[in-house]
């Protein structure tokens, strides 16, 4: 029996070969200098002593495109909504290597990443293998389910293969086709239109993407909010008390009002009383929760805000660490660990580290808390966690930060929550209520291993007694003004994209990079914080599309893309079909295209006006 195993990346093929062969394998070169073929023996369930060849692809093998008669300049862009779509092999030498290796194989086993994209790449691998060996059929494919390169985990994946998920394949194929048709048609229309008025240079492209524009839209909306901000006055009442030479501020429980008359009337009522009464004195235990298990989006957000690292660099570093077996698969939406998760083994591997080893030892020797369970589970991968230990001095700069962060986050997840004593005094003045708080942190717990989070004791309250009558010498009506919001940070943009369904944990970073590389936005540092600001071109594009009177849709807002993502989920669950979703989405975008095309002159003119106004 000969089994052909194919991984998504060369590094995964090498690591899995090492594990399955116990280090006893032969290496053969392929036509592609990065792709190696590893030969070894392995006993699969019911198939003892198999000859195995493990090789890999390097990402997608096949792309979709339009036939030559529909290339740029050969047809009007609107035709692309219904043009035929052809498949193009992206990396012929890798494709041929799989076909050749499949020729003498009885079975194909897919070792791509366990996500939707990995499922689709698995299907591309099948096509290459099937070309070389027609006996290999899609229903017979073994698919390994793994999320990191720890030995026992990989062996379990090899011994428990499942089937390729063809519904996930359909979902990705649907998304690819919509992205191609919509992206190509709008990009060509937009580029030609902007070139005709010299808004962009001859060699430039003004791209449109169903995720790209909503991503840009978030940034433009924020920019406009900052630019158009008008401060507004508000009023409130505050009481300052002093006892035993300790001062404290009591805040009005009603907060603030943008209505002077209302606050003035209530303040006037208070002033009828010279004294107030401490009506409640509460001391309660309060906790500061340890972090949730780590998802990709949280990793990107935290790396952006803590290390000022771009989402792309953070994910890139995490992927390198995963490929070398140090971290689990870094593309995950899951924020709860499975019940069977072996925490102790991981603590054990981290014990020797000079920075956090003592915390790992403590958890290993004295027990740990079960991590909090979040609400998300992609049913493919556990939260990001350390797998094997590496001394961070051996890592590159970004990898060092990401590895330390992931380990500390994992250990923090398994520690107890931090504990404090919160004292709250409630003052009644007239019929108005005011409160003052004091916090004493009593047990730091997870905070000791997780320096990224701050929770500190505040100034303590004077020693009030419940029922104390206090003279109100300093009860005042104050006013303030609202302050402008900040421009968009990358961490906030990632959150907005995630919550609004723009891109996936895996592609969010790419979309942000795309709007940077297209010069739709720039990153600007102000103090220690880096903000994302739209360029005049980015402003012009969004504002001019917002001026179009589409039929109850927007091309710059997230709603349409979110609808597509929900439909893709439905395809994956078998609740609808690829064909239905394709037709629905094509119809919506075709209408928007038609309106844009008819109003292209206005769109470009408006874009030019906005660019000039913002330059």
């Amino acid at each position: 029996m000969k089994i052909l195993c194919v991984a998504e990346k060369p590094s995964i093929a090498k690591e899995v070969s090492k594990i399955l062969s116990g280090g006893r394998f032969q290496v053969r070169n392929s036509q592609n200098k990065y792709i190696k073929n590893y030969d070894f023996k392995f006993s699969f369930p019911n198939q003892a002593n198999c000859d195995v060849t493990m090789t890999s692809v390097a990402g997608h093998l096949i792309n979709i495109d339009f036939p030559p008669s529909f290339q740029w300049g050969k047809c009007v862009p609107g035709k692309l909504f219904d043009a035929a779509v052809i498949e193009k092999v992206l990396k012929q030498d890798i494709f041929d290597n799989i076909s050749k290796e499949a020729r003498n194989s009885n079975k194909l086993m897919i070792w791509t990443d366990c996500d939707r994209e990995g499922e689709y790449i698995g299907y591309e691998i099948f096509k290459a293998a099937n070309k070389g060996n027609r006996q290999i059929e899609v229903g017979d494919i073994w698919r390994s389910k793994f999320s990191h390169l720890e030995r026992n985990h990989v062996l379990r994946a090899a011994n428990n293969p499942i089937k390729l998920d063809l519904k996930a394949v359909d979902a990705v194929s649907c998304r690819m086709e919509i992205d191609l048709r919509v992206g190509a048609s709008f990009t060509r229309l937009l580029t030609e239109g902007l070139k005709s008025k010299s808004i962009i240079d001859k060699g430039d492209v003004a791209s449109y993407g169903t995720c790209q524009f909503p991503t840009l839209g978030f940034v433009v909306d924020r920019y406009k909010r900052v630019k158009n901000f008008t401060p507004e006055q508000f009023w409130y009442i505050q009481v300052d008390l002093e006892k035993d030479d300790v001062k404290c501020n009591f805040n009005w429980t009603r907060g603030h009002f943008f209505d002077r008359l209302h606050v003035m009337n209530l303040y006037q009522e208070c002033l009828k009383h010279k004294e107030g009464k401490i009506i409640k004195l509460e001391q309660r235990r309060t906790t500061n929760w340890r972090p949730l298990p780590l998802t990709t989006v949280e990793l990107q957000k935290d790396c952006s805000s803590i290390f000022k690292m771009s989402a792309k660099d953070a994910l890139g570093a995490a992927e390198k660490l995963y490929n070398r077996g140090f971290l689990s698969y870094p593309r995950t939406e899951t924020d709860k660990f499975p019940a069977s998760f072996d925490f102790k083994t991981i603590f054990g591997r981290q014990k020797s580290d000079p920075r956090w080893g003592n915390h790992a030892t403590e958890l290993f020797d004295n027990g740990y808390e079960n991590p909090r369970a979040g609400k998300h589970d992609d049913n493919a991968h556990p939260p990001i966690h350390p797998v094997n230990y590496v001394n961070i001095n051996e890592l590159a700069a970004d990898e060092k930060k990401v590895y330390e962060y992931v380990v500390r986050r994992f250990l923090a997840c398994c520690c107890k929550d931090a504990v404090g004593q919160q004292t709250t005094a409630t003052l009644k003045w007239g019929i108005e209520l005011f409160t003052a708080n004091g916090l004493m942190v009593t047990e730091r717990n997870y905070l000791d291993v997780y320096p990224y989070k701050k929770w500190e004791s505040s100034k303590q309250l004077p020693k009030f007694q419940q029922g104390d009558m206090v003279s109100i010498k300093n009860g005042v009506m104050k006013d303030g003004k609202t302050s402008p919001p900040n421009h968009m940070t990358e961490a906030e943009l990632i959150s907005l994209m995630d919550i609004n369904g723009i891109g996936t944990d895996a592609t969010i970073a790419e979309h942000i990079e795309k709007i940077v590389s297209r010069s739709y936005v720039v990153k600007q540092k102000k103090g220690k914080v880096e903000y994302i600001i739209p360029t005049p071109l980015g402003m012009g594009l969004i504002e001019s599309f917002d001026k179009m009177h589409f039929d109850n849709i927007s091309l710059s807002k997230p709603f349409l893309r979110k609808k597509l993502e929900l439909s893709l989920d439905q395809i994956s669950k078998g609740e609808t079909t690829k064909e239905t979703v394709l037709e629905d989405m094509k119809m919506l975008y075709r209408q928007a295209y038609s309106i844009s095309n008819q109003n292209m002159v206005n769109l470009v003119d408006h874009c030019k006006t906005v660019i000039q106004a913002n330059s």
Partner: protein
Amino acid sequence: MSRLNQIEDWQQYQDPNNVSVDRVNRSKRIIREVPIEEDGSNYNNNFNSSVYQPEVYKLLLRDFSNNYCYAYEYNDPLRFIRESREETFTPLKIKLGGRLRVKPGAKVINGVIYLDNSFCQYLGLIDQDKELTDNLNTGIVQRYIEILTEGLTS
């Protein structure tokens, strides 16, 4: 609530596809802002601005003699507004122009009435006020946005 935030609320009813999407507001459909604390780890609950804004309804009342006065919601939330299931297609929970009986003993400060549930009774829209209620409610979204915008710049 600040005028800017109120304008955004009203704009959602004017053109839901064209509202700003960079912040969270009360809309269930749109997530427009995800505040992140300085350490990057936690969300707080105060999504809308740098100040906490409890919502208090301020009503403009007219009596049978054509006298006008303001009334504020006071102490307990006014059920006739907050629990109304009337579909208004505006951020308001009830249509304008309904009749309200203010009972003797309601608190008055500087000519402003402070209302709680025990001192008022909502009678709803009355047929004989149809002309008034139509006037008040027709085109209300655009009108409110204009009034609020004007208030911002004045």
